[in-house]
């Protein structure tokens, strides 16, 4: 694995309940790259993330850069209303930030990065946040121990358009400011053009992969989603 490669996946196969979910997937992610994983529902996108994180049994090779710090933002986490958890306490649940002795100042700092700037934010209850705010909080939580790579599973699901836009801006900002490598799962093609360096079109297998401008042809997309899909890239001048 060369120095710049942060993740190398070779012949990855994942089977769940005797059903093949991912077949012979191979790819590499370089440092500071943004890789988007695109695909219809049930294509195995989340399964791929969970396999990469070591949460699922798999065959094949998943090789992370040595001692790499990974941040993970899962999709559609339910807000637990049963527990009266404050934002400060939510951060305290994270073992790695606890070890870093992350104080209120550092937490406020990372919350500011994701655009949460309320002065009494730390005592706010997690359960009272809107879904967009909660998504931001999860990003901040994922960033709290300064990971080099962020795995981001459908950050837009359940968020209104305005919220979506700001989450994208946020991702863009993070990439610039923190030199983050980003792996992003999404359905949303507009994002891919804006953010992605590389794309994997996943539907069990990789139907196409490579630089986004090259691989996102109408032919590939209709193969991926089935049927006619046209998407015209907006070129800003």
């Amino acid at each position, binding site marked *: 694995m060369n120095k710049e490669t942060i993740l190398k996946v070779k012949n990855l196969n994942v089977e769940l309940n005797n059903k093949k979910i991912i077949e012979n997937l191979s790819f590499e992610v370089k440092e500071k790259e943004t890789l988007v994983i695109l695909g219809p529902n049930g294509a195995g996108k989340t399964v791929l993330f969970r396999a990469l*994180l070591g949460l699922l049994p798999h065959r094949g090779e998943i090789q992370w850069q040595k001692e790499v710090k990974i941040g993970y933002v899962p999709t559609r986490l339910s807000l637990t209303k049963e527990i*009266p958890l*404050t934002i400060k*306490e939510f951060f305290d*649940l994270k073992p790695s930030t606890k070890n870093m002795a992350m104080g209120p100042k550092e937490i406020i700092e990372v919350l500011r990065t994701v655009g949460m700037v309320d002065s009494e934010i730390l005592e706010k209850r997690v359960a009272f946040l809107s879904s967009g705010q909660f998504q931001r909080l999860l990003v901040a939580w994922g960033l709290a121990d300064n990971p080099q790579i962020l795995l981001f599973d459908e950050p837009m699901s359940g968020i209104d358009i305005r919220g979506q836009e700001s989450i994208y801006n946020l991702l863009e900002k993070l990439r610039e400011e923190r030199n983050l490598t980003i792996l992003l799962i999404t359905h949303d093609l507009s994002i891919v053009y804006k953010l992605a360096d590389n794309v994997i079109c996943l539907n069990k297998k990789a139907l196409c992969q490579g630089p986004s401008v090259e691989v996102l042809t109408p032919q590939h997309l209709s193969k991926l989603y089935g049927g006619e899909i046209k998407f015209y890239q907006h070129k800003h001048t």
Partner: protein
Amino acid sequence: MNQFILSLVTGIFIGGVAGYLGSLMVSKRMALVGGALGHLTLPGIALALIYGFDVSLGALPLVALGIILIWLFEIRTKLPTEALTAVVFASGVAVAFLILPSEKTVTALIGDIAQVELYGAVISIILATIVFFVIRKIFSKMVLSNISEDLAKVQGINVKKYNFIFLASIAIIVALGVKIVGGLLTAALVAIPACAARNISRNLFQYTYGGMIIGAASCVVGILLFKLTGFSAGPLVILTSTLFFLISMIFKKD
């Protein structure tokens, strides 16, 4: 030592830790499991009362057996835990009533803290203290895995291991709890103080330690009332916590 003081101190420790552990059980929607496990202890309590040994000693193996059975049935049948808990605990109650002499029935069902002996009290206090520190140690990991198992695992938390420790702690507290409230009322011992604390707390810290304080206070007031009125201590402890719960609704935060 004065029997009353002994009962009171034992009650404070068991009730307090039950309230503390209860906050975690309520947030995992497991409060009624505490009750089912309590019912399951009845055959053990029955044997303890017949042969004159400590009721918690009789209760503990049965709770452990119950947890293992539920776990095994779950693997084998894939039925929901809650349904299997019903199967197991009802069987426990049935066995208890086959062997339980009728004059011991009330004690088995609602407990009798006044019967606690010095060695039983000391062991209860030590065990409750150990459970408290164990739960305090695993608390944040349990809450995180409750929010998302994946997030917890990515953080290197061994969710299965902590779930097992959690279940073992529940088993011990239920077995100790039957001393105060018998096999019938253990759900209340873990659930009501936590629910009351939940109503008046603004954050996790207030919730968990509120549960502990209300649990301990319920035992103090209940046992004092028992001393004054002569009614059974178990129901008085539970009704005291119910009163705390009702009061907490007046001051509900959200």
